């Protein structure tokens, strides 16, 4: 089937690398990060065609840096952003426009945030959930981080799900529902071969061996002897469910995984608790709907 509508064209301010999207039912709006313009775009919920955003957040004071995941706090009316480039979570009023400063910024070595992709928010427990990996420089591990909704600055996470028993070799996005964290565990291990100057995050190979690169100018990663294996040649991904109270090296309490699921490397997930449906997108494969009401409410 083809889409019922598309939002596309130069006026939209969209470009490649859209790693997040969230619908705001309170305002009937769509919030999307524009990674390569360091911006957060807000569209009307019924936007279609080459339609510009209603407003956007962009500028040096925003401290946006390769924004990827986005989430909404409906109580405080905030937009939460996972910044891949600066390993931070920044928070803005959802009516914010232009070069606005974040009202909160979770960043720094105590946070243990590294290459983060996704963010979600549980209003019932006031918990911010961040998916990605631990810090850079010398080692990196994929993890799910949890912070308080009011956290700001260089603060330690409340809890962190990390370790081999989790089965996570590479996570991407999360969705939360009443104390449950649903994770699209992609498992793809992207090893960028080239980069610009400076030390950059390491990526854990699927045997958890740390991997320490150095980069100088535009050149292949030092220490690499051959082109890295494809990120897609990794164990099959899955959807895992953890309780928000989980901490440390713990397996999921529920899982969608296997040949019949059709999932290979699921990248993102959305929930419809009312219908008991879980929507999963798998890049290059398709969009899948699972009817699994039994997986909702496990965190209560």
């Amino acid at each position, binding site marked *: 089937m083809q889409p019922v509508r598309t939002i596309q064209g130069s006026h939209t301010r969209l470009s*490649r690398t859209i790693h997040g999207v969230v619908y705001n039912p309170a305002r009937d709006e769509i919030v999307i990060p524009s990674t390569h313009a360091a911006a957060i775009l807000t569209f009307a919920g019924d936007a279609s065609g080459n339609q510009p955003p209603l407003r956007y957040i962009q500028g040096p004071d925003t401290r946006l840096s390769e924004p990827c995941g986005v989430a909404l706090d409906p109580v405080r009316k905030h937009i939460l952003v996972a910044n891949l480039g600066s390993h931070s979570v920044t928070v803005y009023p959802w009516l914010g426009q232009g070069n606005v400063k974040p009202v909160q910024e979770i960043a720094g070595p105590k946070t243990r945030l590294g290459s983060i992709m996704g963010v979600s928010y549980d209003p019932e427990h006031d918990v911010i959930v961040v998916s990605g990996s631990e810090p850079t420089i010398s080692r990196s591990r994929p993890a799910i981080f949890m912070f308080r909704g009011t956290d700001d600055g260089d603060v330690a996470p409340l809890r962190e799900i990390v370790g081999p028993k989790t089965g996570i070799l590479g996570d991407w996005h999360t969705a939360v529902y009443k104390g449950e964290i649903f994770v699209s565990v992609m498992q793809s291990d992207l090893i960028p071969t080239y980069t610009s100057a400076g030390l950059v995050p390491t990526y854990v190979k699927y045997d958890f061996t740390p991997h320490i690169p150095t980069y100088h100018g535009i050149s292949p990663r030092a220490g690499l002897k051959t082109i890295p294996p494809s990120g*897609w040649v990794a*164990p099959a991904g899955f959807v895992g469910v953890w309780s928000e109270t989980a901490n440390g090296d713990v397996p999921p309490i529920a899982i969608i995984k296997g040949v019949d699921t059709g999932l290979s490397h699921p990248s993102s997930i959305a929930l419809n608790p009312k219908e008991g449906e879980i929507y999963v997108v798998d890049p290059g494969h398709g969009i899948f709907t699972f009817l699994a009401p039994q997986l909702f409410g496990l965190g209560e």
Partner: protein
Amino acid sequence: MRRPKRLRSRSRLGIAAGICALASLLLSVVSDLAAPARAQAGDVGQSASSSHPSALQSALNRALLGGDLTPVRCVIDHYPEFSGVAVDSDHDVVAFSDFNLKSLLLYRRTGNVVEDGITQPLTQIIGPDTRCETIGNVLVDPVRREVYTLNADTGDSIMAFPYSARGDATPRTLAVPHGAFAAAINQVRKEIAVSSTAVDIVTIFRLGATGLTHPIRYIWGAKTGLAVPWGIFWDQQHNEIGVANDGNWWEGDFGKHSARDLNLVRLQGAQNEPRLKAEFRPPSIRIYSGLAQGDVTPLRVIQGPKTQLDWPRSIAVDTVHNLIAVANLGNNSVLIFARDANGDVAPLRVIHGPHTEIRNPTGIAIDSRHAEIWVANFGHQGEAFDLNAQGDVAPKRIIRNAPPGTPVVGTNSTMALGYDSKRNQLLVPN
């Protein structure tokens, strides 16, 4: 490691259960492929040497809490979806890159056989050994009779195959910066230029380079004006490189102000941090000297409202007729400019309208010898137009990879998903 074959599916979409069942069959092949020798799909969380079931394995056995569930619905396209096109008039070959099934398809320029509405290719290069993943554009080398494609999102590589390649062929591979969408060859200099959308750079390598190789030159920096560079051409007669840009610009893409450096500063406790600029700039075609190195300003820039540029995705140059053609993705058109156009100038001609059947054009090529323009629509057909075509005209020839009227799903490299609870719709960024 076992190498299951990729399938070139010709199945039509049926009822939801049938779709999902077929998807499971196709994707089961991919899932088996994805399991390395040491860790099988069911053994996540369990070490290879352990003989006791892990807690995770126990969870798998509890069907009440999930497990190997069959989806009740899925949105999937079983046919190729073209993303790029290249033409070799010396050997009468037209090549298309297929983002959906991760393949390359080569056809005759004319006189292809059609079965069940589908144009039969001369060959399809497809399979895990090809390294084709998120492939963007395609180009051909008529001198060496090779076809190239690039991984635009993962894989960070450009792959070259001989025209004679079939099925799961192993390419000659060169590592390139992340987000490489298109490349162009200069046969005189024996060099290849690659545009990388994710880091706003054009890198130039020696033609035939393989593996991990330093580029011999690169165009990169704030003065270049590169802002998500997509299509590229190399005018070897005038030794000029042309690059199409979306316009989304961020200072952090240029090494000195890398946000990763910013984080390093934070971790070391420094107090002063640079503030990074970001802008939405107009789309543009930027022309550089073929010998450009480093942070250089372009020789010419086609930019402004008169140009009608709207997400220019691929570009091609014709030095015989002195033209530049643009696949204008944003408004489903093809724009033709003079080769030396500069500034806010209107195109010489525009091909646009329902009769053209141009829809989501992502690839373009010019056949100077036969005076034709080829267009790859992101979907199920590619088209050839007369070089002088203008307005709402029908294509001369159409190459189809699916029966006429087959819907195009149009998703590619989808890394996010949202749910609109008001409209009961899924929001899928691409």
